[in-house]
């Protein structure tokens, strides 16, 4: 805490050198794990993104819903269209305070290009219980290429604070 020795530039001793080497090797290993998983792993953070505007995105979502709607279901008393797009296609979810629109019906084991964008604030796409969490921003069309590996009803929770109704923002994905 007080004045150091005058000459503090001294060689490290054996224990320090050993720990430094082991810690450095561990750090290098941690670094390598990420690209390794990027090329070998099945779960990677999506990077595909396009510029959009809330108006433009809303139009795309409406066209998408009109084309593939198969029914209606309500969440918290509000009716939402249930949309069953073909496997391999582009599917859309629109986030706004405080809805995830529409309800998607997907097939297990099939790949979809899931588009996410917001009409207003930041929102958090949190798919439960599979626990996949992504940030959704206005003006960004974020494309996640997903393959559901389990079936059932999945809930989308909003996990980015978006004003006072934040906790009521709940959506749904059905996997058959």
């Amino acid at each position, binding site marked *: *805490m*007080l004045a*150091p020795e*005058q000459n*503090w*530039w*001294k060689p*490290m*001793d054996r*224990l320090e050198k*050993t*720990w*430094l080497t*082991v*810690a*450095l090797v*561990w750090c290098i290993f*941690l670094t390598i*794990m*990420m*690209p390794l*998983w*990027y090329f070998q*792993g*099945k*779960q*990677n*953070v*999506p*990077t595909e993104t396009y510029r959009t505007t809330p108006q433009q995105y809303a139009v795309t979502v409406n066209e998408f819903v009109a084309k593939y709607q198969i029914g209606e279901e309500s969440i918290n008393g509000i009716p939402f269209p249930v949309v069953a797009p073909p496997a391999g296609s582009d599917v859309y979810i629109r986030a706004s305070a405080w809805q995830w629109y529409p309800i998607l019906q997907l097939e297990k084991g099939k*790949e979809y290009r899931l588009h*996410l964008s917001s009409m207003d604030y*930041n929102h958090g796409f*949190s*798919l*439960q*219980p599979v*626990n*996949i*969490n*992504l*940030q959704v*921003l*206005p*003006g*960004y*069309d*974020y494309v996640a*290429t997903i*393959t559901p*590996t389990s079936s059932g009803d999945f809930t989308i*929770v909003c*996990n*980015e*604070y978006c004003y*006072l109704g*934040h*906790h*009521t923002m*709940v959506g749904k994905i059905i996997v058959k």
Partner: protein
Amino acid sequence: MATLAPTFPWVKGAKDDYRTCPVLTLKVDMHAERLIIANAVMAVLTLTIGGIAALLIALTRWQTFHLLDATWFYRLLTLHGIDMLIAWMVFFEIAGLHFGSTVLLNARHAAPKLAWLGFILMTIGGLTANVVVLFDPRNTVAYTAYMPLKASPVFYLSYILFAVGALIAVATFFINIVVAKREKRFEGSMPLVAFGFMTAAILATYTLLQGAAAIVPAFLWSMGVISSFDPGIYRNFFWGFGHPAQQVNLAAMISIWYSLAQITVGIRPVNEKFSRLAFVLYLFFINLGAAHHLLGDPGLSFAWKAVNTSYAMYLAVLGSMMHAFSIPAAMEVALRAKGYRKGLFGWLRNAPWKEPGFSALVISIVIFGWVGGVTGVVIGTEQINMLVHNTMRLPGHFHATVVSGTTTAFMGLTYYLIPLIFRKELKLKKWAVWQPYVFGGGMLLLSLGMITSGLQGVSRRNWDITFAGVVPGTVELTLAIFGIGAILAVIGGIMFVTVVFVSVLTGPRTEANRLLLVSGDGNPVLESTKLTDHMMEDKQNQPRGAFVLVFAFLVWFAVYYFTNWWLLGRTWFIR
């Protein structure tokens, strides 16, 4: 005993130059002393407000009580973030900077007027933020205030005032160092602790400038001067402030770890080069950490995220792992040199566990490293972040770092500031002995409750998670663990604030005559006996126990790390 000159100039008989601290035999500039006291008092005050908010929001998230309504929950959550993560931390750090750049260097405060200006701006900014969050419903935007959530202009202005004040105060740190060097107040290198504070000050400078890059556009936008600002860029700039701000806390905390270790067991750094190198690694690499908050964001490439989130090559993590060895090792060498040589851990068994600075130090190191550090690296792994982003695992991590780690260390040091700087006798010593254990134990439970809740998908910043109807029943249990931890920690917080205020307001004014507060009488060998070179190099005093401990740490680190990859591998395919 000579009569004590009062601290403040408006009291009759005050000296305007300096006094000599009888314990450290260093000059204490009275300007610096007043600045340290003012900043420390504001720190404890904001901690108190933030702590009240903490209790209320914790009792709301604990589903059994669900105390507040949604509006008040989000409002107090905003307040809690501002008071704890900004005001309490920064006020205390500024007190530390004034201490590090004057007392430790045996030097004078070269720019007290400027420093007071900084303090006043910070105080106005901090109080304004509190008032507008509490009384203007527009400002319930959480402390991050992500655009396009729009707060009132005064909200952003309060941030700006606080930041400008802090920048000015940090500037006086550099002025002091330069003046002290020129006036030859100290010889050779700066002491290690001052070196650590210097790291914190350099980090703080660009942290605050990056904060301006986010908050100034938001301020202009709220006034209608500019029509829009990219929400992704705002997040990048905001975290250019928000994340490095935690690294300022880190550097300050580690400096305080070295101080507490010196105060309580009389360490000498085992190798100054090793410790200083670790600080330099922070300086170069830790600023990349803003990316930790953007790993789930659109518009950024894998390469950008991976390079930045890993601090180039986990080199800042390397710095922390170096301190994680060097501090316990120094403690072990010191205790062994004082005769506690039995076995691998005899030094630990005989350590001064009743000394609040020592227990606070150990609790801070252990929870910071084993819980905060490990979870932080795992969360910051590019792909694993997908499992964690904005779930309760996140606050679980940073409550282990910034609260169990930094706040506990700051509290521990505060006990020693009372006799040394406030020149008051410490009152309620028994409370002070127990306080770190109650607070640290509570915070540990709180963090574990948050982490296990987050693992089950519970999101952070959410008034009622059961609303979504998806969380499993076990969440009730983990949220109860979180809630019990919060109550314990708040009790620990109340104990701390009580000891500080009772001592400062009612304790007799007295010059300190020893460093240790509690264990000095029963443990005379602990009183700073000077470690000789011979003792430092004696084979019998080698830090073998600390060496074993860091390897145990590494094993736990690896287990937690691979478990998370395994969890990730079980989820849906996504790219």
